[in-house]
């Protein structure tokens, strides 16, 4: 579909959508800087355990692997939702958004369970600099995923009520950028926090 064949109105919608995509992309780049600095802080704080437990004693490889699997599959199912938007299939969009939500919620459940377990054994964020950095980094990612879940619910409702109109499709596109970005941040978390911690 070449730009030449679009009506004036369609061209305007496309331009608005691309401008908003750029604006949202700039926000994501800012978020990437925040995560990069939290990663740097964490890496520097790894030895700062103040005589408390280290990552090797606290982290669970199976839990991290399960969280990774949930988030990666949810990235794929969001991709299916995006494809369904292109195909104009409203029911499929709602279905895949639902699956993505369940997978994301499962991830948050595992993370909260891990946090609760750590705090219960006296390894909360107040135990050491290492644990402060850990909770800040992983918690910031968890808050992002939770916001993504809220966003999925809101856009799911819009798809159900308004249908796949151009503005709704445009918002779904940006939610997709956000969701895939969070999976990239998680690649950093398991590669810098969990795997090296368990060596």
């Amino acid at each position: 579909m070449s730009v030449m064949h679009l009506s004036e109105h369609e061209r305007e919608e496309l331009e608005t959508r691309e401008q908003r995509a750029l604006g949202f992309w700039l926000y994501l780049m800012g978020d990437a800087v925040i995560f990069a600095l939290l990663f740097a802080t964490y890496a520097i704080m790894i030895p700062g355990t103040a005589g408390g437990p280290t990552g090797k004693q606290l982290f669970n490889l199976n839990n991290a692997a399960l969280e990774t699997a949930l988030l990666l599959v949810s990235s794929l199912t969001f991709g299916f939702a995006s494809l369904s938007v292109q195909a104009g299939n409203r029911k499929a969009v709602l279905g895949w958004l639902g699956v993505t939500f369940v997978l994301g919620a499962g991830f948050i459940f595992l993370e909260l369970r891990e946090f609760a377990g750590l705090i219960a054994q006296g390894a909360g964020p107040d135990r050491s600099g290492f644990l402060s950095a850990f909770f800040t980094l992983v918690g910031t990612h968890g808050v992002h995923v939770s916001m993504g879940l809220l966003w999925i619910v809101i856009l799911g409702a819009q798809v159900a009520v308004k249908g796949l109109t151009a503005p709704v499709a445009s918002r779904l596109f940006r939610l997709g950028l956000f969701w895939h970005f969070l999976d990239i941040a998680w690649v950093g978390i398991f590669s810098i926090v969990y795997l090296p911690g368990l060596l």
Partner: protein
Amino acid sequence: MERHGLATYLIGFVLAVVLTAIPFWLVATHALPPQRLLLVIGIAAVLQVLVHLRFFLHLNFTTTPKENLLALVFTALLIFIMVGGSFWIMFDLHQRMMS
């Protein structure tokens, strides 16, 4: 707003699974000495980030607007300066405190 086929997502997913499974499996089995394992984890992570950017965020050098790529490169530069600078300062400080 070009179309992205099912194949793109599936290829990206399979590559991401492989690049995740390798480091997790190596850590679970302790198949390599720690130094070498860290290197593998780092390489797999960088490759996986590139896979996500290419197959899930659909970044490429033809259809992605130039502004978006410019913003990404600028962000990478900022991250390099700030993270690299933090490590430089902290390791230098650490060494001075030791000696």
